[in-house]
């Protein structure tokens, strides 16, 4: 598996991986993130309800707690209490309370609303379901299940971060390498561009670009547009790092050796200059993802991000920004928790990778 010419390089990678594995916190966070992404990937399976379908019979239902003990005793299978309605004649509000005397069990791997697995295979299987209303995190003003909306929102929020960062990496390493390797005018030009971008206040740039997205675009196209916009602003730092590394390696012995043997420019870049940067790139990428996720949250919060019927965590949080919600329906603020959790996990993971990538540090 190890090529003779790459022995030194491979050992470094093995070294890093071993150190990373030892960092339990980092591994825990990585596991949590993998779980999030799996849930996001198979959102329809994990979500008990259709995230977009309004259900006016059950508006503003508070979270229905999973119970293991009810009037009939203790059960291993969790249950959900039925809902009792009460209408307020003054404010025309309907409030719901739990009726513990009527409980029904939560079923696993049950039939629910139909969807297409991976967009192709029609399917009706869901992880959880029940005979009656089962709103584990409550519902919103249109009677839509918050848990399902969070799960589907995860799909958008998490992938925007990932894809956006990938784009940033691509642009950043490309331009950084070009800048460092070619030098001269190209270098100066790219450096000025990076400075320009970093001097520009981000909010106006976001707003203007988001407002410039054609209004007739469907929500999917808007989502792609938002991703590209976010990534366009993030590549500067990475480019500068890569450039620095490339500059210092350009005159290294082994590069000179490769050149004297007659290796082409692209070969040198690919095999000699970029690989030592990978560590840096991965660390910066991992630490940049939370920024992207928060960026999408902020954009949707300002009303510039994802459009209906698509939903994201940012959209859910914007919907919760009402005094009425904070005081009367506070469960709608729950989407803040996965946002914070994911961001923390990425930060920890990034730190762990950075520590592991520097095997000669303290």
């Amino acid at each position, binding site marked *: 598996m190890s090529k003779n010419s790459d022995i030194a390089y491979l050992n470094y990678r093995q070294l890093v991986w071993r150190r990373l594995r030892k960092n339990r916190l980092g591994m825990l966070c990585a596991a949590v993130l993998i779980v999030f992404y799996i849930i996001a990937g198979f959102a329809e399976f994990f979500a008990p309800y259709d995230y977009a379908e309004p259900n006016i019979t059950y508006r503003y239902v508070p979270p229905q707690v999973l119970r293991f003990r009810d009037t009939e005793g203790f059960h291993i299978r969790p249950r959900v209490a039925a809902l009792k309605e009460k209408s307020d004649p003054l404010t025309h509000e309907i409030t719901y309370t739990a009726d513990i005397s009527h409980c029904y069990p939560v079923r696993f791997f049950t039939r629910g609303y139909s969807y297409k697995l991976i967009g192709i295979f029609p399917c009706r299987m869901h992880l959880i379901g029940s005979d009656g209303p089962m709103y584990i995190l409550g519902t919103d003003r249109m009677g839509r299940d918050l848990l399902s909306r969070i799960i589907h929102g995860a799909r958008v929020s998490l992938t925007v971060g990932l894809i956006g960062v990938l784009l940033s990496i691509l642009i950043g390493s490309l331009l950084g390498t070009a800048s460092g390797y070619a030098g001269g005018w190209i270098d100066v030009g790219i450096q000025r561009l990076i400075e320009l971008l970093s001097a520009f206040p981000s909010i106006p740039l976001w707003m203007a670009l988001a407002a410039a997205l054609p209004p007739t675009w469907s929500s999917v196209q808007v989502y792609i547009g938002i991703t590209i916009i976010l990534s366009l602003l993030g590549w500067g730092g990475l480019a500068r790092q890569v450039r620095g590394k490339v500059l210092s390696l350009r005159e290294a012995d082994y590069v000179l050796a490769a050149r004297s043997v007659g290796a082409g420019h692209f070969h040198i870049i690919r095999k000699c200059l970029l690989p030592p940067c990978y560590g840096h790139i991965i660390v910066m990428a991992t630490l940049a993802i939370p920024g992207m996720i928060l960026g999408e949250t902020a954009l949707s919060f300002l009303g510039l991000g994802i459009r209906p019927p698509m939903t994201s965590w940012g959209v859910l949080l914007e919907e919760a920004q009402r005094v009425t919600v904070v005081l009367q329906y506070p469960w709608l603020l729950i989407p803040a928790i996965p946002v914070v959790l994911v961001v923390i996990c990425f*930060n920890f993971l990034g730190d762990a990778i950075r520590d592991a990538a520097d095997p000669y540090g303290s």
Partner: protein
Amino acid sequence: MTNMIIRRLLLAVPTLIVISMVSFFIIQLAPGDFLTQKIAELEQRYGDASSLARVQELRERYGLDKPIYVQYGKWVWGALHGDFGESFRYEREVSELIWERIGYTLVLSIGALIFIYVVSIPLGIYSATHNRSLPDRVLMLLCFLGMSMPTFLVALTVIVVVFNTLGIPLFGLFSMQYESAPWSWAKFVDLLKHLWIPVIVMSLNGVGGLVRIMRANMLDVLGEPFVLAARAKGLSERAVIYRHAARIAINPVISILGMSLPSIVSGETIIAIVLGLPTIGPLLFQSLQDQDMYLAGTLILMTSTLLIVGNLLADIVLAWADPRIRYE
């Protein structure tokens, strides 16, 4: 070193020119212009269908029928004379509007900075000296929480909860009676009462980050040989920590202060919008939504200038503090 400064300053000029052009252009990117917006608003509110001639008149008055480079040129020419144009929405001079808000923006940002440093440094030192203990781990967790939380979410919840539980309305920077009253001791006290919520909310991210940095620095310094030597000499633990180690650990933190300079004026826009603070951030956001060209253009230019100046100052401070970092 002076070479570097001069070079950066010279480079800043074309950068600013490009930024001003780009910002002017970007504001135009969104379809429509201010006049259409104003007419649309009038119509939406009370169905007033202005006569076509009057529309044209207003368009001429604001120069919106001229090509964009003419508008840009007029603005730049005026700006060089200190006239940054007029805000269409407020119907007043741009410079006046900005001047009114700068004071509060500075107070909040500097207040937040002071808060961050005053809180983080002691906490960082404590955390480092009690490394791996329970309080340390808890603090680290809280720091991560603070760093990762999108604070604008917290903003509304905080004032609503404070209002609901304590019955104290603490919205914006002043109670309604002091809002435009002349300055007095009572008004100052009112300001202090309102200040602590925005300052704390704005500082959450910063505190989280800075505590970790301070802690890391202290740990580094505490591992240095001279600390061992000081202990061996018989100095009290207190003297070792505060008089020797902390002093050195603080240095890099001070240089980070330089890097925070740019954010002093741009401030935290989203939090300010949610809390209704009379600062620059919300003004910029509203002007972009209104497509209030001169106001938005001036604000973007101002923020960018300060960003560039701030970066330069930060680099200077860094270079001065650490002779190893010099530029060719």
